[in-house]
């Protein structure tokens, strides 16, 4: 290996990390070769920094500094803490698939309770018994490459054609190890005509200052109806960089939602390709940030074929010296006539030092489309606050009511009543922590 490449100190640390972790990474020698290639891609790029357009507002070299060593395989004490976290953060009635410190925890998961149309394997066994295909993506993103190099485990879920799942599937990532990294990679293959709800949750069980790098590869067939809800509720000093690469078939409805309520540095980067005609995509998101938290939602919607619609509603509430980033890009390919794509992002700044970067982008190569975007940033309306206080609401309660209404515009896009209430509950706890 050529180590004469110029590297930052951080790049060197990861290089050491890879070498030292190599023995613990699952996969045959062929898979390790794939990992090594991914690692070399990462090494060439280094940690993303502000001179890369995609990472302009989230400079990981400045914000993260170093990538921490791999978390140890969780022991009995860690699993017992994780079991408590599953109780606290599990969505009632969901079939849970639990990853603790980057390792699948079979005893905490409900694999046996899954519907017969759902099959689950671990990434680990797939890499050991099958191939390294799941580590390959077309992406040239440094963090996705790093994920391919380092992923220790994940879930490989297949939902057969026509399955109508009454119970949601909830993938819960739990961090129990402080000052350590978890790299996970999962695949969701959702067949034709499937009706399903997928929830992904990121939480801590006593851990602080941990790092998460997760990647999820999703394919959804034709005529499906899928709700995909992500809840990034990490410890306040955690780092979470997570990538979703989603391909949607024809005449499918996908309702994608992400809410970030924690993490010193977090980024969801979603790449959603509408690859079949007649599909309807809703992408909604909420960032609730305080102290010095940095939360980034970068969402790329790629209209590759004609006759699809996409709607994005994004809301950020930013307190103290926190920093919210929204990058929304809609790409309309030359053939994607009759595309209807809209995005609206609004930021609510609760302090003079709060910062919001909104970057909506439209890249339109077809000529018969309807696309639009809007972005606003502002403070709470004083006249509304006074009205509520004049009716007896204490200032913090009045603010909370207005903040809930503000983010409600995104949260109410979640169709399922119980799930929407669950998400509202997490937002309310954030508001309580604020006051």
């Amino acid at each position, binding site marked *: 290996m050529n180590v004469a490449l110029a590297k930052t100190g951080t790049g060197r640390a990861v290089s050491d990390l890879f070498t030292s972790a190599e023995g613990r990474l699952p996969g045959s020698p062929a898979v390790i070769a794939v990992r090594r290639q991914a690692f070399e891609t990462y090494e060439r790029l280094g940690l993303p920094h502000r001179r890369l357009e995609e990472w302009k507002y989230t400079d990981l070299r400045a914000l993260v500094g170093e990538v921490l060593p791999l978390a140890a395989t969780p022991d009995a004490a860690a699993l017992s803490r994780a079991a408590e976290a599953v109780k606290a953060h599990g969505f009632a009635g969901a079939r849970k698939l639990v990853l603790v410190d980057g390792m699948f925890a079979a005893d905490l998961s409900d694999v046996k309770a899954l519907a017969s149309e759902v099959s689950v394997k671990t990434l680990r066994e797939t890499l050991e018994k099958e191939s390294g295909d799941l580590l390959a993506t077309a992406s040239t993103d440094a963090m996705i490459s790093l994920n391919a190099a380092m992923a220790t485990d994940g879930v490989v879920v297949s939902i057969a054609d026509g399955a109508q799942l009454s119970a949601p599937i909830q993938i819960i990532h739990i961090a129990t190890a402080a000052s350590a990294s978890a790299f996970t990679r999962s695949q969701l293959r959702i067949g034709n005509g499937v009706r399903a709800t997928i929830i992904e949750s990121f939480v801590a069980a006593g851990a602080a200052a941990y790092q998460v790098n997760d990647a999820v590869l999703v394919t959804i067939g034709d005529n499906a109806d899928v709700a995909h809800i992500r809840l990034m509720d990490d410890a306040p000093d955690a780092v979470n960089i997570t990538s979703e690469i989603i391909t949607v078939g024809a005449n499918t409805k996908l309702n994608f939602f992400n809410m970030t309520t924690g993490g010193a540095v977090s980024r969801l980067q979603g790449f959603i390709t509408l690859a079949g005609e007649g599909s309807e995509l809703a992408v909604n998101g909420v960032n609730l940030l305080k102290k010095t938290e940095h939360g980034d939602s970068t969402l790329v919607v790629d209209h590759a074929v004609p006759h699809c619609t996409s709607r994005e509603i994004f809301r950020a509430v930013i307190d103290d010296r926190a920093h919210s980033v929204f990058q929304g890009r809609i790409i309309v390919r030359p053939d994607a006539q009759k595309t209807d794509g809209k995005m609206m992002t609004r930021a609510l700044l609760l302090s003079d030092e709060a910062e919001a970067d909104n970057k909506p982008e439209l890249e339109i190569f077809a000529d018969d489309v309807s696309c639009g975007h809007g972005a606003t940033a502002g403070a709470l*309306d*004083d*006249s*509304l606050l*006074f*009205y*509520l*206080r*004049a*009716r*007896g*609401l*204490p*200032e913090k*309660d*009045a603010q909370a*009511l*207005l903040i*809930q*209404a*503000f983010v*409600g*515009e995104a949260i109410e896009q979640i169709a399922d009543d119980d799930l929407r209430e669950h998400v509202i509950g997490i937002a309310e706890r954030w508001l309580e922590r604020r006051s």
Partner: protein
Amino acid sequence: MALLEVKDLKVRVEEREILHGLTLTVNEGEVHAIMGPNGSGKSTLSHVIAGKPGYEVTDGQILFKGEDLLEMDPEERAAKGVFLAFQYPVEIPGVATMNFLRTALNAQRKARGESEYSTPDFLKKVREVSKSLNIPQDMLKRGVNVGFSGGEKKRNEVLQMALFEPSLCILDEMDSGLDIDALRIAADGVNALRSPKRAMVVITHYQRLLNYIVPDFVHVMSKGRVVKSGDKQLALELEESGYTQFEDAA
């Protein structure tokens, strides 16, 4: 003890003095009308009593039930029984009217150390009052004042007045933007709330409203002071002679 005592009140907004020493005493059960031309300081008085930020009181005091109102936050004043019916009630998208009403009522009760209203009792009360004010139930499910007509917004203010049972109601230009039928419904709602324990201060530009809400006392404001006080006859005289006579007196 008077319910409300405004003593020699001087108020500035952004370096400009709006009230130049206003005095007003309101006792329980009384209805006072405050009339005056645009810019005489009527709305400023209502805002300062309710505690709206942005006003600087440079002199004088406001006592409510003997307590210094100016030391209290707006929410404390509300819990003590001060209610301002806004001239322009704000629209609050995303906050359902019913949720708002319950949250506000319970916040006031909590501040007074009272138990929260039970949901059935609350709903029963809202239904009763909204029916008498001709407020359809589906309006209560919408965002606060969102898409309401001018008349509906004012009726929503009266609904809140009936629910919160304040001891002092200040009606700021309740007649603005209302046609005669809407005005009658709102005024009937207000009249139903008149009681020996409750006082009202009706701020209006026109005598018309006072045909519906008949005051015990009428005060004329000009240039930041009360320049004349009398009974309801004074309002009728004003209708004849206009405000110009007071411009010089002030």
